[in-house]
């Protein structure tokens, strides 16, 4: 089966000489839930722009479900749905009309377009707003409208460029649930996000792009296994004045109620608890100091990111 997305040695040099993509290669399997991460200006949006035809590539190859965009972009576009970062619908159009117009651009007959529009408006909780001009919607509703619009022609590949930016936690969780459902139903999803928790929670595979290069492309699980050190914050039952000492573990007292402990790869967290208990220190609860993926992300896209990691 063809890859949902295949990018081979993609270059993009803008008119001002800025090289946004320096020969990236990427494969996304059909049915995958894939995260494309990178700091601002890394080249994520340029890559998406090339895939959806809004940016002209300088060189390289892009295939969507085996269809080369240089040979039949029209057919490739039929397989693709795009949810851009910025709201880019006509603010004066009614919500349902926006979906019907989009369906029309893909050649869907009116009756089918109406059926699909109504289906996705209901699924995304916009049915009551169907006759409301888009400018009257809340930010979260506008995000959902863009997802509904991208799905109205039922693409096999959906690319979402930071879909939950500025969305409150409750709505973000409901959008995650919706995306999981459509992925389970067979839609391949590529997601760019700044919320690394989002990528860790939703995605099976991940690529990290930095300065126009892919610096990591692997599964989320494999990536997390490369973590050498995690820091946990322990919430103590009784206050302490001095940090206890445990052999082979680094402990720091943040304040009288909170203790920080570094656990390296291969060490057992249970050892920390049992030895603290021996010292008479009881732990009420525990949390990760930082998001695990976030630490990796910073290390991969920081100044230390190595050229050798590039695939």
């Amino acid at each position, binding site marked *: 089966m063809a890859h949902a997305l295949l990018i081979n040695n993609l270059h993009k040099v803008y008119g001002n000489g800025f090289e946004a993509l320096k020969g990236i290669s990427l494969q996304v399997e059909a049915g995958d839930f894939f995260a494309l991460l990178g700091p601002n200006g890394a080249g994520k949006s340029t890559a998406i722009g090339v895939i959806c035809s*809004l*940016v002209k590539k300088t060189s390289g190859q892009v295939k969507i479900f085996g269809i080369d965009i240089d040979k039949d972009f*029209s057919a490739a576009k039929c397989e693709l749905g795009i949810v851009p970062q910025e709201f880019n619908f006509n603010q004066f159009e009614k919500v349902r*009309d926006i979906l019907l*117009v989009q369906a*029309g651009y*893909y*050649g869907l*007959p009116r009756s089918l377009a109406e059926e699909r529009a109504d289906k996705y408006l209901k699924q995304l909780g916009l049915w009551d707003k169907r006759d409301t001009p888009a400018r009257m919607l809340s930010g979260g509703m506008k995000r959902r409208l863009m997802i509904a*619009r991208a799905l109205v022609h039922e693409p096999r590949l959906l690319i979402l460029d930071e879909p939950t930016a500025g969305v409150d936690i409750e709505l973000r969780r409901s959008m995650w649930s919706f995306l999981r459902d459509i992925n389970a139903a067979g839609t391949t999803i590529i997601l760019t996000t700044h919320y690394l928790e989002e990528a860790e929670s939703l995605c099976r595979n991940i690529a990290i792009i930095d300065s126009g290069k892919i610096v990591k492309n692997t599964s989320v699980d494999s990536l997390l296994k490369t973590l050498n050190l995690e820091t946990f914050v322990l919430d103590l039952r009784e206050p302490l004045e001095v940090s206890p000492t445990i052999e082979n573990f680094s402990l720091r007292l943040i304040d009288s109620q909170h203790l920080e402990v570094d656990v390296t790869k291969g060490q057992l967290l249970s050892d920390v608890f049992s030895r603290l208990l021996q010292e008479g220190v009881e732990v009420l609860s525990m949390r990760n100091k930082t998001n695990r993926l976030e630490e990796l992300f910073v290390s991969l896209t920081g100044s230390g990111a190595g050229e050798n990691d590039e695939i």
Partner: protein
Amino acid sequence: MKFDAQWIAFITILRKEVRRFTRIWVQTLLPPAITMALYFVIFGTLIGSRIGTMGGFSYMEFVVPGLIMMSVLTNSYSNVVSSFYGAKFQGSVDEVLVSPTPNYIILLGYVLGGVTRGLIVGTIVTLLSLFFTDLQVHNVAITVAIVVLTAMVFALAGFINAVYANSFDDISIVPTFILTPLTYLGGVFYSISLLPEFWQGVSQLNPVLYMVNVFRYGMLGVSDVDVGFAFAGVIVCIVALFSYSLYLLESGKRLRN
């Protein structure tokens, strides 16, 4: 994209365009009606009655075809320029650019939207003129053909203006500094035979002169220019502007990075 899908895409754009200008009819359809009614009252009735005849017709009869044509071409132009630039400004133009709709369908959709508004406004102005004069139509085919072709020329010009525009100021520069002078000096209000020979020659460089005169020929049977030559010129303009507009879409200039 198969033909039937392309047809659906074309109808979608056209329907969207018509819905846009009918939704804001107070801004799009009413003003030309009021403006032209004032022209009819002032230039036709009040001043025209003192001018006497022009080209063998009363001034009102002479000026009506020119005013109808003026409303058609300005509205065809302004519909496309404001709609397409508005889509660019809001980013909603990306909706159609990322879709499989071919560029020529996008262009045809917007252009026919502009032509439709031009023709609707032209019809409104024509009906209004009936309150001031008895209209006659010398040649229906020529009248209809030139008004449709002229609307196409200006809709295409509006599209090109919209592609190049970087701000809302840019979409008013061409109508103000180019379109209005060409229209006013294009034989709408007078026959160029009234001008000295040198200015008659200069006027013949104005494309609007040919469009207005052919339309006037269709209605009254008189023209300052050769009708066949004028038709050929208008068709050449359409082919050139259509080709250039398509080139802009294909190359992605000002639309795609």
